């Protein structure tokens, strides 16, 4: 049987306008307050026009899980998100250091690491996607990303040919 593949939040940098509404929405849904620093999705804006949003990418061989000295992190079998055992986690931050994407938050109030869980407990699409005004955010797997990229490059090629 093939390895299970999981969907994660992906952002199309061509569409992202850098507005950060995804951060505000995520923080409110997860903490009841507007505090972008506690958002599990973060907008990176390299001034002036380079921008995208980053959340947990559900890495296949997740370094955060390996890095945790207390075995507080594990992968959900249901949808692949990284689960944080609130009792085991003591907020040491090794997972944050291990994450190549800066996608893990240390909540100073709970003293726990917090990671995007795709809002699996909510009905409907994750709020970050719902609040994105420009449809830059979506759920995707590495395979759907590859397919999309291939379709786009061929469409472009076709357009160029057609233009000639």
């Amino acid at each position: 049987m093939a390895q299970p593949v999981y969907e994660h939040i992906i952002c199309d940098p061509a569409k992202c306008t850098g507005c950060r509404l995804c951060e505000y929405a995520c923080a409110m849904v997860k903490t009841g307050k507007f505090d972008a620093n506690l958002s599990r999705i973060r907008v990176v804006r390299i001034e002036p026009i380079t921008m995208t949003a980053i959340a947990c990418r559900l890495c296949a061989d997740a370094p955060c899980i390996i890095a945790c000295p207390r075995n507080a992190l594990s992968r959900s079998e249901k949808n692949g998100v990284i689960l944080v055992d609130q009792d085991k986690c003591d907020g040491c931050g090794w997972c944050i250091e291990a994450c190549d994407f800066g996608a893990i938050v240390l909540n100073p109030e709970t003293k726990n690491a917090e990671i995007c869980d795709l809002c699996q407990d909510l009905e409907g699409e994750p709020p970050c996607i719902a609040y994105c005004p420009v449809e830059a955010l979506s759920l995707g797997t590495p395979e759907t990303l590859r397919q999309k990229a291939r379709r786009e490059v061929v469409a472009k090629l076709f357009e160029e040919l057609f233009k000639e």
Partner: protein
Amino acid sequence: MYAYTGRILHIDVTNRKTSIQRVGPDFIKKYLGGTGLATRLVYDNTPKGCDPLGPENALCFAVSAFAGTTVPVGTKHGVAAKSPLTGFIGDSLSGSYFSEMMRRAGYDGIVIKGQAPKWVVVFIDDDDIQFLDAAPYMGMNTLETQRAIRERLGDENVRVSAIGPAGERLVRYALIDNDGRQAGRSGNGAVMGSKRIKAIAIRGSHPITVADPKGLMEASLRLIKASRGPGTLKYRTLGTPANVLNLNKMGLLPTRNFQETVFEEAEKVSGEYLHERYHVKSVACAGCSIACEQWGAVKEGKYKGAMIGLDYEPLFAVGPNCGIGDMAAIIRLVQLCDEYGLDAMSTGVVISWAMECYERGILTKEDFGGLEPYFGNDDAAVELVRRIAYREGIGDLLAEGVKRASERVGKGSEHFAMHVKGLEMPGYDVRSLKTFALGIAVVARGADHNRALSYEVDIKGEVDRFKAEPGRGKLAMEKEDFACILDCLVLCKFLRNCFTDFEREVAEIYTMATGIPLTPEELKQVGERVVNLKKAFNIREGWTMADDWLPPRVLEDPLPSGPGKGVRVTPEELRMLIQDYYAARGWTPEGLIPKSKLIALGLEDIAEEIGVEEPVAAPAAGEA
């Protein structure tokens, strides 16, 4: 309190003293935030008759009730002071990350007075206020300053409002830049420079809580969806540069210092052309769902590498208005203005005045230090922008703004100095926009489209734009009050067509965010109150009826071509319109505010200071 913090931070940079002023819901709901609260803070903290560039002027920031929340385009702040251009109220708006951090640092408003002995960076780190040596940043442009301070403090959460070389040299129309957005008009960058503040860095760690999170989240989502609908189609498609061709076709595009209103090269400087040839990305302010800012990049030619987010007003000012029909040059010119920290609108109108002076022989090649700034000479324009920012040669004169420069030069150049109250004109020729001609003549901050807003009724065809008639006073008043509500909340004006019942919907969202009850009627009254407050400030600072007037060119030179050929605003028309407006406002025929009016608006303290007794109505003929 929810959303609000109830705290105003006072900073005196002369002796590095700070204090906190507590404000309650009753006070704050009268002004909401933004330019309303900022104006009130200016009124309360500047002594009458103070020098705008002296230590007594108060530079005031006030944040939106919605900053840092999901309410779209609500992450904004207002900046106000006594304007060094007009001597009256100078209120401007900016937005994005800085606004959010101001609220999260724990402040609804910041009042800065005094003058630092040496240049400083004020670093507001929650309750900890530090005064950093600005020496490493002096001479840096606006964006470099922000980056350098962020790097030094080592945290992306530090957001910075900075001035550029123009603000350091007190160019009267210098601006304050944060996150690539600008509090652009009326010279607040010069006020900041006069206090020897190179930048204000701010970092906030407090989360923002709201009264009704669920309600606010739902309302936000509805508004986000609405903001992607027909009400913002223009802003999302081409952004404000879409105006170029529309206004050109209607004969409203100021060309060669308002000598004409149809530009023969309009196609080449249009939003359509920008999109086709230069567009690289549409960008949003923090918290904005519209993303109107159209970034254009120049990929070849002498301006290769130039890049800027282009809006109509800067575009018109340095482009058609200077006879420049090269989009690449316009992109470069606006970029330079932003980097030097100059209001591109005022800069363009000042340069176009200088160009006309040159073409008429009033100023010579010698006066310009060897430059030949005929209309369309983009090289000269680029060099003039630099000289203005550094006050070099003729730049020192031009840095004073078109009112002062023309008064100094004389020789008839006042005739085509395009300003009202000292603030340079925006990109709509008012000769064939009679409602807007009135709006711009009377509005407190001077020649300004964003505060007056009445161009809408003329351009959208709600009235005959060529006709001056009674009733326009009421229309101008309503548009001005509506604009004012948005500026106080703050919500971006580009959201204005996304509501079905504006006052009701917005009052509801306001209460969800702040927990402060607000009726639609109360919200409406805020607009009227703050417009009266601004006028009251002007009256206190020596306003007379002569200040509500238009430039001679508008009154004397008929339009030479286009759909409005032969049209001007006659002095008789303007006098009639102004009286119609004063009457609609409940002001005296002299444009003063009756005590009773101020008291009805909840401005009792101001009524005592500047209110006049109600004029006794003369009995109508035949009734006596």
